[in-house]
């Protein structure tokens, strides 16, 4: 599946890259202020990348061969709604998983 040499190359490169991202200001730039437009874009990275990563997994799940699946769509919706409502990741995960299991059992 994943070639061992390639895997370690990715692990090491990703580790080095992640360290540099964490070190870039604290270690290299120090106290010099950053241009506000850079900070403004950095603020939205997580919220811009993660939803784009998840959306295809939710709508075209590999487990059903990419065919949209009502159980998974509803479970995703419940997870998001509970997360928005309670602002609590554990609660959201548990409600989403419970919804998925109940629906897979009922519809399966």
């Amino acid at each position, binding site marked *: 599946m994943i070639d061992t040499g390639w895997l370690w190359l990715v692990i090491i490169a990703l580790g080095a890259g992640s360290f540099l991202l964490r070190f870039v200001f*604290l*270690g290299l730039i120090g106290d010099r202020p950053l241009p506000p437009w850079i900070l403004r874009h*950095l603020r939205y*990275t997580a919220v811009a990348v993660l939803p784009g990563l998840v*959306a295809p997994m939710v709508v075209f799940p590999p487990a059903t061969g990419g065919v949209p699946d009502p159980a998974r769509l509803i479970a995703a919706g419940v997870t*998001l709604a509970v997360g928005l409502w309670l602002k609590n990741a554990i609660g959201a995960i548990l409600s*989403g998983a419970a919804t998925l299991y109940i629906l897979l059992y009922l519809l399966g």
Partner: protein
Amino acid sequence: MTTETTKSIFFKGVRDAAPFLLVVGPFAVLFGVVATQAGLDAIEALGFSVAVIAGAAQLTALQLMLDQAPTLIVLASALAVNLRMAMYSASLTPYLGQAPLWKRALVSYFLVDQSYGCSILAYELHPHWTLRQRLAYFWGTVAPICPFWFILTVVGAKLGGSIPDWLALDFAVPITFLAIIAPMLRTRAHVAAALVSVGVALLLAWLPYNLGLLVAGMCGMITGAEIERRLVIKGAWQP
């Protein structure tokens, strides 16, 4: 006012960060399980967690490698997920920038969502803390999180093969990510960034190697930043 020793500040950090173990622990186990199912052994899964210490980026990289995406795409997408770490680094610099270089390097390595989130809040609430006390607090927040990240990755990797199919573990990854994303949607700018990202990612899902994700991420970032800029001009920005 109570007197604060460096030691008591360290344990305050431990207490503040400990509840996050409830989120981090299962996430680490999940990564171990997913890694084993992708064909990694426990050492390789642990290597991933030790080198990167960032679950979302680790899962992104793993997912793209399973799709046989080119190395550059794997790295660019996973590092894009981790770009927020650069923001954490920038925002801690005024508080920790005076520390010796090796300590700043060590802090950087252990800079994760939970250690950052607790520390920045504590530094704002306790402006009188010395550099030594700030560092003690930071190490306090790392102690209940990072060692467990490593240990529980291995636990997940050992469990990996024995997870039955009916658990529908394929969907644990999106559910976990959704649970992480929801509390981030604090402002209209954040919501807009997320919606644009979802729309573009779905429209471009046919592109090879998850290239759609990179485009979606960039469109989302630009959307969020632009809406924030306009709200600031209108005087309607509430961070």
